[in-house]
């Protein structure tokens, strides 16, 4: 599909990854900064996401809004996101414009203006975004679930922040946040596409030569205290369908149990033939949608179950999920289920390699977790998991007393006492 990944570390500690991939004349460039909501406190919640928005609001050489228009006019697109762990500004363009976008993205990330007036205006936009999320039932339900499961740990706070905190946030706070965290040892640049690695590396080295290494990396939050009893939240809203979501804490990506947790999600809730979907949707017709996912980054990880259903089925579905977890924790997955989950993981990996932005996303994501080769390593680790390990992961982690559950439903449909 292309060459190997070339990785170089600049004197500032900034990591540069380049992969030559040829099928189409396009290139993806991404700047990753290791700062996200995990590194925030109740006093500055949402500042990383706010700063990400402000990258589009002008830099030394580009007035507000110009970056997007410039990249679009080159025939590409640019976007950004903030997660628990990182902030990422990325784009895809025809590969002949590599030089232009490298310069544009570097300038945007290193020299944002962060002006008072623009910041004040942008708070309004972020509050609008917040309200829109409230109107998206699945997203709102997940946010409430995380808050329930993590009363102390930052996972419990929305990445977008808290309204009261945002309203009083100033541009000078943003400037300080930028100075402290947009530094060499906390950043990585990823380039994937129809490009040549050597000159690209050299060019990036020149463009980013003035980046300082910065101080120590942001500290990691204290772990949440262990949970000893099931937590439950029942929320009413003017909805037509109900939502049921559950969360169980699991170990992170670097735990030996991580691959087993991944396969657990696949066996239980990925695809129509997964255990939960087969029973709750296909056989009993109780849910219109059910899925599982394992969120595996640095510690801690978590395991999610997510359903959309008629409100009158909430009780039966919750009971059904616990029965299936119990059965899997007792009998373990079949050999065929294990092979299906591995086949699925392999296919997903290959499908993600179809686009330059997909490859770049995977590389950057794992590089920020410590090592870009983790993606392939994870696929190999999946191949080696034994069914007893999946059984053990289910029995040890998907326990009723560790579970947090949210019912988000139309009024009147009382469900579980």
């Amino acid at each position: 599909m292309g060459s190997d990944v070339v990785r170089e570390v600049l004197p500032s500690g900034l990591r540069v990854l380049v992969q030559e991939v040829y099928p189409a004349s396009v290139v993806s460039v991404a700047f990753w900064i290791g700062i996200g909501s995990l590194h925030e406190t109740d006093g500055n919640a949402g500042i990383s996401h706010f700063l990400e928005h402000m990258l589009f609001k002008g830099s030394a050489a580009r007035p507000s809004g110009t970056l997007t228009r410039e990249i679009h006019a080159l025939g590409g697109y640019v976007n950004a996101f903030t997660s628990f762990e990182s902030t990422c500004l990325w784009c895809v363009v025809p590969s002949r414009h590599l030089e232009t976008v490298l310069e544009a993205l570097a300038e945007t990330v290193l020299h944002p203006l962060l002006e008072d007036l623009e910041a004040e205006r942008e708070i309004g936009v972020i509050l609008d975004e917040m309200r829109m999320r409230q109107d998206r039932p699945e997203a709102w339900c997940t946010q409430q679930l995380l808050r329930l499961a993590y009363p102390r740990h930052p996972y419990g706070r929305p990445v977008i922040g808290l309204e009261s905190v945002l309203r009083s946030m100033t541009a000078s706070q943003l400037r300080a946040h930028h100075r402290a965290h947009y530094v060499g040892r906390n950043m990585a640049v990823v380039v994937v596409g129809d490009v040549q690695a050597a000159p690209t590396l050299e060019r990036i080295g020149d463009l980013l030569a003035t980046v300082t290494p910065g101080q120590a990396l942001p500290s990691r939050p204290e772990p949440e205290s262990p949970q000893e009893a099931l937590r439950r939240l029942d929320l009413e809203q003017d909805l037509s369908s109900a939502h049921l979501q559950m969360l169980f804490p699991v170990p992170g990506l670097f735990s030996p149990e991580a691959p087993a947790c991944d396969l657990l999600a696949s066996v239980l809730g990925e695809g129509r033939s997964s255990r939960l979907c087969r029973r709750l949707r296909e056989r009993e017709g109780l849910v219109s949608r059910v899925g599982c996912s394992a969120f595996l980054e640095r510690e801690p990880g978590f395991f999610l179950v997510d359903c959309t259903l008629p409100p009158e089925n909430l009780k039966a579905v919750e009971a059904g999920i616990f029965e299936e977890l119990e059965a899997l924790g007792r009998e373990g997955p079949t050999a065929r289920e294990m092979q299906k989950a591995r086949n699925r993981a392999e296919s997903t990996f290959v499908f993600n390699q179809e686009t330059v932005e997909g490859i770049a996303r995977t590389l950057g994501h794992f590089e920020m977790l410590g090592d870009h080769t983790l993606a392939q390593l994870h696929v190999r680790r999946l191949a080696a998991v034994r069914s007893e390990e999946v059984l053990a992961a289910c029995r040890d982690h998907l326990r009723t007393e560790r579970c947090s559950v949210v019912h988000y439903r139309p009024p009147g449909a009382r469900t579980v006492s």
Partner: protein
Amino acid sequence: MSPSCRGLSPRMHLGPGGLRIVVAENHATPITAVAVYCLGGVRNERRELSGITHLAQRMLLKGTRRRDAEDLAEELEFLGARYAPFTSKDLVGATLSVLSRNLPRALDLLAECILEPAFLPEELERERRLVLTEIRRRQDDGFAYAMDLSEAALYRRHPYRLPVAGTQASVRRLERKHLIRWHGRLYSPDRMVVAVVGDLRASQMRDLVAEAFAPLDRPLPGLPEPEPEEPPETPRLRCRRRARQHVALALSFMGPPFPSPEFLALDVLAQVLAGMSGRLFTELRDRRGLGYAVGAGLEPRRDRAHFGFHLGTSLEHRQVALQGLLEELRRVREVPVSRQELAKVRRHLLGLFAIAMQRKAVQASRLAFFELMGAGHGFLEGYPEAIRRVTPEAMLSAAQTHLRLEGYGCGQVLPHAPSRSSR
């Protein structure tokens, strides 16, 4: 040849019954993508049985004469396949992407789903309940609901006014015999295209498709055709109130048929208005702060394309935001787009095209779609050139004809009271 189609040289073969098989080799990844497209969908439905195509399509995965729904899902997922039947206003079909070494088995299973669904009564009742839940669920999604309302307002009689999944009443009315009869009329080989893009030999891919769809050996009678409908003379509004934080608003206009030169002109015009560098975003959100989400989209259709706009805003800004949106539409009807702006938009459009075309699933779907809609599979390769030929004058003229501000559909989902602050 555009960079995105580098090395993609599709060839068409005619199968028995007139089935068109379009095959292209692409050795970039060990994946093969298949798109089975067939003319016939909501456009051919009667109002009383609205949703019949969608429910019949959903039953394709619920068991065949040879195996039950669980076996089908299990086998396809064991192969790591991505597969999905779909229904649109004009078309039905299914797509499949799979590691090429698993193509023969996966393709056989997909063809079996399409050709031999069993419509088991018990499965049908379960699927009907799920579809009814999904219809309700769609009303919780402000933009989806507003767009449905908007299109229902735009058309009075034409089936484009009907939602793809049907209504609570119509879906309850659908009987097994209706579905069997409808499915038996839909998949006629002379109205079908199967496109395959993969890293196998072209002849091998062609033979696999021909063999899998061999039972389709003769054309079926035509489907009921809708009466044409003219655009409305006045704006038609449909509002619903829900307990929400923001207003979701949608506008619908009737466009030209696809394919047509006018459609291409509007395709470029849509890009002038849409997206984060488009006029709507720049003017309404960036400059005036009137809403978080704003966008435009042009959906190609056989009778009349759907030119849709959406806007998410607060209750207090609703009127001024809507006026601002209409003002931007008035502007593209009155003032030609400058050469400079057109050049930028064109580059953006063609860049997005090349980026999307990295995926074989996109290549296969577009080949099938263009061939089936009458543009020909060669249109894929010719698309960049056709876009380059669009002039500001053609865009102005298409806007004047089709963005009729005197008559359109408008759907709104409104909060009960002024937006309250979030937690």
